[in-house]
């Protein structure tokens, strides 16, 4: 059985399809990574169009609370095994938005991140390096973020709710305001 798992992990590492969620300026580093200059397809990594088809979720840049909600939807639509790469310092500690009122600081409080790519911006070499690192981790059976998410779902859910449901209704006593006359 363990040999079979090893074979499966080997092929999973050799063929990873990527969904990139580009909210910030990080999107500009991806076209050179995909095309002729750095050519990530030689590692078997191809951009995909929908979360159903993807194995890697690459999140570039900052996440406002509004986009965090979409990222969580997207992550939960993906099929296991799935991995998350946090790209740039915005996903690590908020980056230049560290004191913003509507931007989250640490991504791995809300969804499990397998690898962070530090930098502002990380160059395509850094992205390729993280892909190779992820491939090694997958082939050694170390990248198990998606299992962590299922196991600790209450913790992640509580963190998500803390930011997504922190706004109160603007009109506190709504029946008093809407009453006519």
């Amino acid at each position: 059985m363990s040999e079979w798992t090893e074979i499966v992990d080997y092929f999973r590492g050799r063929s990873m399809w990527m969904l990139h969620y580009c909210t910030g300026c990080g999107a500009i580093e991806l076209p050179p990574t995909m095309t002729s200059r750095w050519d990530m397809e030689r590692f078997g990594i191809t951009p995909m169009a929908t979360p159903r088809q993807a194995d890697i979720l690459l999140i570039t840049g900052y996440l406002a609370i509004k986009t965090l909600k979409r990222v969580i939807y997207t992550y939960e639509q993906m099929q296991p095994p799935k991995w998350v790469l946090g790209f740039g310092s915005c996903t690590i500690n908020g980056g230049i938005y560290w004191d913003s009122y509507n931007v989250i600081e640490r991504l791995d409080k809300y969804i499990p991140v397998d690898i962070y790519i530090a930098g502002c911006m990380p160059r395509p070499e850094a992205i390729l390096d993280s892909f190779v690192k992820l491939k090694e981790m997958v082939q050694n059976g170390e990248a198990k973020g998606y299992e962590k998410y299922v196991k600790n779902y209450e913790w992640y859910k509580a963190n998500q709710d803390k930011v997504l449901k922190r706004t109160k209704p603007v009109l506190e006593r709504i029946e008093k305001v809407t009453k006519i006359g």
Partner: protein
Amino acid sequence: MVIVEFLIKLSQGFGIGALALATGLLFGGIARKIMARIQRRYGPPFTQNFMDLFKLLSKGSVSHGWAFDLGLVAGFVPMLAALMFLPIGPFTLFPSDSSLIMIVYLMMMAYLGMAMGVLASGNPNSAIGMSRALMLMAGYEVPFAAVIFSIYFFSKTGYLTQIVAMQSGGFMNWNIVKMPLGFLAVEIVLQGMLGEKPFDQAIAPAEIASGPMVELGGKYLGFGMIQHSVALFLETGIIVDLFLGGAPNFWIFIAKQFVLYFVVVLVDAILPRLRVHEATSFFWKLPLFLGILQAVIVIIQGGVLNV
């Protein structure tokens, strides 16, 4: 004895299916490598498609109801059934005297089954993609029918093995020499059948999020990949039998198939995507004109002049 014969046929059927799948995946992998070299990239290894398929089949997947499951099976089984009538080199599993019309019919059935499956997912992108695919099909089936008519009239039979036998004995007997215009029309039609650029409206990744495949994930997407690979084998195979004189053995057969597919890949590498109504009206202009011209020439040659 009947049971033994049945078991032999069954295992041969499975063998042909596996062979078609492996060939289709290999062609796809080589095409990715060629495309990479055209774009001055290194490209993935040519076995990449096998690894992708293995990974997809080992992934988790989510269904969208019984019509979704059934539709994918209905999209795959007619392709396999059509393979059973196709002369692959010297070998045909079920020789039938109407195999040409059978294959053309089953190929269309496969796309309708696929349409049923992906529309059951309820995603608007897959509905748009499938409507584009069916509209494109209405485009390329018409010139294809004209070419099939020419072949019928010329060979006086729909028995593919006999059509292959009539082309034996050298290059000059091949239908590509006797019906060059028809071959040209069918090569353009092949581009549309395989959904390569400029006719990839149905799976436009950056536009409608890969169209019919938008809700396919994991094992379902793997099934879609299997279907595409078998379709690639079938659609190039039938043109080899019709125009390139079949083949004495399997290796020459896939070499001829690859030549056809290579042209498709090169065209795919340099052309952008047309809009779907432009593509359909293109199919009703140039390839249909070529097909009808070929039919007229064949009728004049065979019916009037009796050459």
